[in-house]
């Protein structure tokens, strides 16, 4: 099998080629300019993930929403469900950068963290 991919790990957008017999986890990856490219290609073929960013409502009317993110790339198939959960949250400042807003989201072991400081 031969798959063409575009790496999204950084804005360079390397054009990757992944070749494998049966198991994509064993793919030979070329076209990457750094090790992240190989990791991306194999993850994309076996368990695609994306960093999810969103805003959640706050109780502060002057700054009504807070930007949040997943602590690491999140399984692509569960993103819609995650967003539905996130939009139900309401947070109250003070909140610090990196503070966990929701632990172990959807039992993935991945946390939702604040991307900003709020007093």
């Amino acid at each position, binding site marked *: 099998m031969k798959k063409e991919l*575009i*790496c*999204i790990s*950084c*804005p360079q*957008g390397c*054009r990757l080629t992944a070749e494998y017999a049966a198991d994509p986890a064993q793919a030979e990856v070329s076209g990457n300019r750094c090790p992240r490219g190989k990791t991306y290609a194999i993850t994309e073929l076996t368990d695609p993930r*994306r*960093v*999810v*960013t*969103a*805003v959640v*409502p706050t109780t502060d009317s002057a*700054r*009504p*929403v807070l*930007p949040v*993110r997943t602590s690491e790339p999140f399984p*692509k198939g569960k*993103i819609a469900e995650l*967003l539905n959960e996130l939009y139900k949250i309401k947070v109250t400042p003070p909140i610090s*950068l990196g503070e966990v807003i929701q632990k172990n989201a959807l039992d993935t072991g991945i946390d939702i963290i604040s*991307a*900003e*400081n709020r007093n």
Partner: protein
Amino acid sequence: MKNISCDVLVVGAGAAGLCAGSVTSKHGLDTIIIDREDQPGGILKQCIHNGFGLRYFKEELTGPEYACRVAKLAADAGAKIMTGTTAVEAKKNADGSFTFKVFSQKEKVCYISSKAVLFTTGCRERTRGNIITPGTRPAGVFTAGAAQKLLNISGYLPGKCAVIVGSGDIGLIMARRLKWCGIDVKAVVEIMRHPSGLTRNIVQCLDDFGIPLYLGHSVTNIYGKERVEAVDITPLADGKPDFSKTFKVDCDTLLFSVGLVPEVELAKQLEVKINPATGGAFVDDDYETTTPMVFASGNGLHVHDLVDFVSEESERAAGSICRRLSGAKNSDKVPVTVEKTLKYVVPTQATRGEKQSFYFRPLIVANKATLEARADGKIIKKRLIPFVRPAEMLEFELEIPAECKEMEFALTGGELL
């Protein structure tokens, strides 16, 4: 009315202003950074997506995270950040210093005087008016950045069903953002035959969601009286719309992501000359404009792909300000130009015998092209570039020879647009 004086006045507390201000403050210069917004961070605050900082901070951050980091750098270095402060007038004094009239929530009307000025004013978005889209004028027409601010800062949904004009990065990022907020995105319409945003954004913002990208198409009509109801999309044949193939798409929201223009209105008051190719000031390799002791960097100078480049460039501009305020003279410089395969080069004047970075915006699409540096017509350095796209800025490090009278850069081996 209050009068404040400082060594360096930085106009704009985005990534450029904060990074520059941290350098000048650390160097011991009394630095004030002003910004009209209530919070520092500039446009990064509303760019809640990830992908920032891989180069500058060596880790992947979201826009607000990057903003927090650079605001902390500036504050820790001792820069005074005045938010809620809008500069309305700039003038040059007889003794070579500058005075800005500003409106501040805290200080009301006040005057800030400085020995040097750095403009880090960022960009404005081009609008529907700039590309002259026909049709009615209903509610629901936004620039992509305005819609982004509504969603990510104010927490309002701009509509329920959208079409996006232009495939620039902000438009692509907004396509995914709208989808993730439950808003349908019917199409992204791009007049050029190739996307104008980064390839990674086509992959993760459009392909991931199956959003169609119409290349070589244009929006030729907007319908709706009170609110947008539909738009016409028309393919282009030989650069002209082929109306026989027009199709109508229902939507209630139309976003324009059709380019950015450096904000230079205040700089013009200081007689700074503007480069028509970038829309920003002409600068030399010290990032000094044509008005002595007035500097510019970041997106207010030319549009960058990455905030990391903005930070690096602004640190260099700040370094020059430190040297010049310590008494260094501006040296004799070589003019730097580009051939028609490149839209522009920054800087346009450079010092001989010093290693420095040049930035270019290509005007060609190529899978292999050679970037050539020519000193007085002779190639002195070249580099093979695997993928050249107008969306992707090029950077080239080079030392200009001691005897050189003029430098020229060109891209060879690609398809001219």
